[in-house]
Structures are given as C-alpha cells and as structure tokens.
C-alpha cells in the first residue's frame, strides 16, 4: 500500500473535437499586411471610416510589442495566421438552410437543443462569419436589436461608430490593435431604455479552420434601467497548427441598467486565447460576469469592469481548469472611479497533469471613489504534484474610506478527503470528481442550468482517466 501519484493524462475530448472537411470559399494570405486588411475590409463592404479605423489599428499593431508579462507567447507566429476564413454558407435564420456538415458539428455541440429550451436567440459563429441567427419576435417588437456586427454596421451604423472600440481602444495592447485591424463577425445587442429581456440571449462561437484566427467583436448596449443576460459559449475542434483568438467584448451598462455576461470558453487545446473584455458601468448600474475557462493552450483573460457612476456595482464569478499542456492566466480587473461603487470577485481555479493556472486580478480605487467596497475571494486546487497554481492579486487604493477585503487559498486535493469518501464505497475517480465539483459548486450555481450542465460535463471530461 504505497501512496499513488495522482497523475492524470490528457484525454481526447472527442465530443468537442469534431473536425469538418475544410471547405472555405475564400482564404486571405497568411500574415498581416495592409493588403490583407484592405481585402478583409473590401469583402465586408466596410464604410470608409471602418477601413480607416482598420488601417490605423494596423499601424498601432506594428508599433506595439507583445506583453512582457503573463504566460509565454513565443509559439505565436503572426506570419502564419490566416486571419479570415469565410465559411461556405450565407446568413440564415432558418436552421433547415444551414449546410449539413456545419449542422452536424452544431448538432454534436447541442445548439438546436439549446434553442429548443426556448432561449431567446441563437447566433452561432462558424469560423469568422455568423451563419445561423434568430431572435424571438417579441424582442424585436420591444425594440431589442440582436444581430451580427456586419449587419449592425449597415443598419445601426451611427451606434456602432459611436461605441466601437471606444472602451477597448486599439492602442490598449498589441492584440487589441490586431483586433481593430482584422475584426470579423460577432454579436451586436441593443436593449432600449426600460426594456427587461427576460430570457438569456445566447451566441456560440467556434473555429473550424486550421491556422485561422478568430477576431469576433461583441458590442452590447443596455440603456437606462434595461436588463439583459447574454451567454457566450466557445468550443472548437482540435487542430495541430497554433490558433489565435483575439476577440473583443465591449459592454455599456447605462444608469440603473443590469447586464449579466456569461461565458464558457472551451477552445481546443492548441488555441492562444487573448481576448479583451470590458464593461463600462454608469450610476446604479450592475455588471455581472460569469466566466468559465476550460480550453485553449494559453489564455490571457481578465474581464474589466469600469465603475464610472456612483453606486455602480460589479461581480465577477470565474472557474478556470488547466490540464496538461495548458497555461491559463485568468482573473479580472475592477476600476472604482466613482463614490460608493462596489465589487465582488469570486474565483476557483483547478490545475491537473502539469497544467498551470494563474489567478491574476487588479483592483484600483481612484481618488474619485470614496467609500468604495471590494471583496476578493480566490481559491485554487491542485489535483497532483505536477501542476501549478499562482495567485497574483494587485490592489491599488487611493480613494478615501475604502473597504477592501481579500481572501486567497491555494491547496492540493486532500488525500484524507478522498480516503473518507472511498470508505463509503465511492470509487477513487468518483471521490476526486465529487471533491472537484464541490470545489466549483459556489460558481456552478451561478450559471444557467444548461451551462452548469455543460460545465459539469467539461469537468468530468477533464477528470476522466484519473486513478
């Protein structure tokens, strides 16, 4: 009877690793040049200001260096990234018209099932173009807009022009600039004043071409006293070429409005996920982030809440699971920029089989934000002695009368707890699984049911083969 090492091998995630025959209509040249950017812009029939925006972003991109902190990005070779792949399908709101091979993949991922469960709208991004999209008539009557960014650029050009990359400017960092230059696809949601969207809107992103980057843009505006729950899910098949995801999410939460933004990211394990998400919250507004990071090879993801109006609130609830070959650097940023603003940060990170999971957060309380309140609670669980977890919370408090609390826990899965459950007849695998599920339970109960189920399935997939 010797102590066994809890080494858990990487497993084939067959359910999520579905590859289709690669049949694109058009592929841009590899590498990022002015010609590539102009090509993308022309094919998308951008207005002149958007082409100018893209070219300016390209200039900024070329002038910026890769970030000097966080996980290593040396595997990234932008010269090999095909930035734009147009799938062999046109926009459609009728499931029956979606091409069979694309449909097969969605079927395996449960998209129509999700819709059957009366989700308000489904926008699925296949490669870089939205191919399937629907929204309930009721919402349209209330003046809610839910469409892809390309359509928004035509039908709601003024709004896009006003808000697009105003919160995440291209000069922010190299990947924001890249996004500005080559963005394609994504969702646009507008909720008018006082409208409360009762059922969640859902979009499902995935990538299907080897070497293709995905640069979708999500722009959501919730007007005064409106409310919305937006669900973003990502899953991509596994390819051997390094894939890059540099999406951008900009959320505008107006006075008294409320927005919940839920994500489960499950990129294939060769993906570089360098996504930028930011919310601007005005007086009495509420932003709630729910974030699950399971996939990708490397992730750098820190959704930011800018609490710009008095009494604005933010909550961030996150789960990160880094298995073999994964380096997931996740967390959040909160900027308190007005009096009586408050934020709640609650995260769980798990690492397994040599995976690296880092929790990184920044809380800034400016001089303009007296009586700010912020509480941070982050816990990490390592499933074996090969894996690594780090916690890097930074706090910068300038405002008067701030109430800031921080609680962090890092630990290995308890062999005593496993023995205890096993002594009740529960197998070792199941005992481990129960402990891990129990560990993320406070987060799982924040998720809408079907996403909680998906997250539990993802955790089970990650844990399978444990002994």
């Amino acid at each position, binding site marked *: 009877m010797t102590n066994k090492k809890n080494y858990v091998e990487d497993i084939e995630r067959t359910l999520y690793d579905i590859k289709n025959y690669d049949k694109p209509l058009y592929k841009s040249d590899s590498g990022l040049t002015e010609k590539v950017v102009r090509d993308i812009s022309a094919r998308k029939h951008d207005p002149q200001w958007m082409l100018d925006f893209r070219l300016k972003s390209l200039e900024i991109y070329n002038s910026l260096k890769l970030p000097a902190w966080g996980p290593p990005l040396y595997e990234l070779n932008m010269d090999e990234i095909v930035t734009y792949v147009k799938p062999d399908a046109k926009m459609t709101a009728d499931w029956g018209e979606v091409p069979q091979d694309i449909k097969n993949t969605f079927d395996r991922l449960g998209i129509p099932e999700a819709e059957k469960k009366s989700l308000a709208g489904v926008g699925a991004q296949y490669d870089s173009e939205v191919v399937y999209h629907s929204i309930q008539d009721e919402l349209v009557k209330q003046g809610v807009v839910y469409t892809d960014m390309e359509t928004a650029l035509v039908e709601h050009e003024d709004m896009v022009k006003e808000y697009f990359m105003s919160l995440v400017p291209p000069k922010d960092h190299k990947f924001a600039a890249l996004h500005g230059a080559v963005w394609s696809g994504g969702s646009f949601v507008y909720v008018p004043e006082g409208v409360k969207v009762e059922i969640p809107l859902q979009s499902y992103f995935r990538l299907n071409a080897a070497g293709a980057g995905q640069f979708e843009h999500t722009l959501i505006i919730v007007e005064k006293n409106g409310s919305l729950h937006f669900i973003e899910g990502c899953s991509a098949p596994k390819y051997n070429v390094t894939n890059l995801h540099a999406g951008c999410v900009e959320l505008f939460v107006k006075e008294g409005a409320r927005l919940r933004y839920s994500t489960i990211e499950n990129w294939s394990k060769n993906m570089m996920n360098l996504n930028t998400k930011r919310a601007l919250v005005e007086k009495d507004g509420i932003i709630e982030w729910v974030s699950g990071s399971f996939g990708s090879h490397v992730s750098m993801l820190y959704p930011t809440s800018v609490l710009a109006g008095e009494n604005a609130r933010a909550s961030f609830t996150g789960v990160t699971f880094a298995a073999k070959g994964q380096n997931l650097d996740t967390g959040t940023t909160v900027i308190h920029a007005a009096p009586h603003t408050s934020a709640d940060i609650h995260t769980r990170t798990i690492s397994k089989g040599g995976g690296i999971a880092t929790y990184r957060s920044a809380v800034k309380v400016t001089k303009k934000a007296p009586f700010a309140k912020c509480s941070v609670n982050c816990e990490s669980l390592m499933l074996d002695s090969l894996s690594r977890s780090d916690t890097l919370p930074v706090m910068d408090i300038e405002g008067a009368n701030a109430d800031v609390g921080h609680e962090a826990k890092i630990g290995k899965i308890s062999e005593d707890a496993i*023995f205890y459950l*096993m*002594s*009740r007849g*529960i*197998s070792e695998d*199941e005992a481990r699984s129960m*402990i891990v599920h129990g*560990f993320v339970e406070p987060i799982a109960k924040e998720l809408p049911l079907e996403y909680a189920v998906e997250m539990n399935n993802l955790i089970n997939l990650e844990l399978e083969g444990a002994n």
Partner: protein
Amino acid sequence: MAENFLKIENLNVEVDGKHILKNLSLSVEKGSVNVILGPNGSGKSTLMNVIMGNPQYTVTSGSITFEGEDILPLKTFERARRGLFLSFQTPEEIAGVTVENMLRTAKAAASGEKIRLIPFRKELLATMEELKIDADYAKRDLNVGFSGGEKKKSEILQLLTLNPKLALLDETDSGLDVDAVQIVSKGVAKFHNKDNAVLIITHNAKILENLSVNKVYVLMDGRKVEEGGADLIEKIEREGFSHIQEGA
C-alpha cells in the same frame, strides 16, 4: 461461518518507516460486538485505518481477511463495497457535497443500482429524526461547520444509511455530551444484529450501555497485550492500563 468474518493474523504495519502495529492478531465473529481498549498512541486508530485500506499505512507482513477473502489487495472503496465501514475519529469536511448527495452516491455505488430520490430522502429524514439531527443538515455540505458532536452523529447517520456488515467505530463517542453519547449508543444498537458485527474503540464505557459486548482486546504499543470478555472493561476502568503492562 463465524470465524470467517474479520480475521487479522500477525499484522505488522509501518507509517513513514515507523513500526506501529506489531504481530497483531484478532478476529471478529459475525453477530458480535468487540471493543478495543488501550492508551493513546497504542495503535488503535492505525488498526482501523489499515482495515479500511488507508494508503498512508504500509502493511509489511501479516494478513487481513473478511468473509474468507484476502482484502489487503483491495482499495478502500472495494473494501467498503464488501461491507466494511469506518466511523472516523475526525470526519473530513467536504465542501460543496451535501450529506444527502454523498450518501445517495455511496449507496448507488455500493449496490450498483440507481437509488430513487424520493424514497431515499424519506428514509434518510426518518433516520435523522431518530438521531435528533435537524432535517436541514441533509442539504448542508458534508461536515462543513458541524460541531464535534454533529460530526459524530453524521457518522452514525451514514452507518445506518449504508448498513454495512462490519462497523469500525473509532472513538465515535469522544467529545460528546451525555445525551449525544446516548443517541450514538442507541444508533449503534439499532444497527447491530446477528448478521453484522461491530468493532469499537472507546475510552468511555457509556457507548456500550445499549450493547452486549462479546470480546475485549487491549492494545499497548502496537501489540495486543490482553483479550477477554466484557468483564475486562470493568477491570481496566478500575485498575487502568499500568496493571496490564506490568503483567505483560
């Protein structure tokens, strides 16, 4: 078949290279109640953990059989599924796993059948009432924030729900007030019948009040130094362990 229930022969156990149990032999007959006495550090808890297969302990020689089967190669959960149960001296706290969920999972795992929620819950709540455990505890995380006494009652709840063949009770009465000891004692008495058996470590004869003890073993420094009938308990209570040590 009595002699085929639990049989331990010439058992030697090490932990971190330290020799803890030394040539220990004892047996538990079906239908019997057995008590292990001994001062702190005599190896009583180690024995319980080794019977249950705690991987922290290494059996260097000797054998343990249950119903004629060599259980040493079996993992803890396999032993549990053969009918062994350990009531822990310090039960683990498991966050995010409710009492009800754990017990239902354990019962399903042991029986290989799906356990239907409604009848299971009804039975669980009835048992909880008998043990004077508030019904809310079914939905609480297993042992998290439970007082010492609540944890021990939770162990007895698990014992009664899982209904094993052999109950190993490691100081289930320690840290309990008089009333709680009575509840635990009655719970154990309720569990016990002619087809199962109990092996109890205790410092307090009160837990035995509702039971009729068949055999008593005295452990000191990892060795069995005396065995006898129920009268041995009184003798130890009267004279302590030093008397035995001199005689041994």
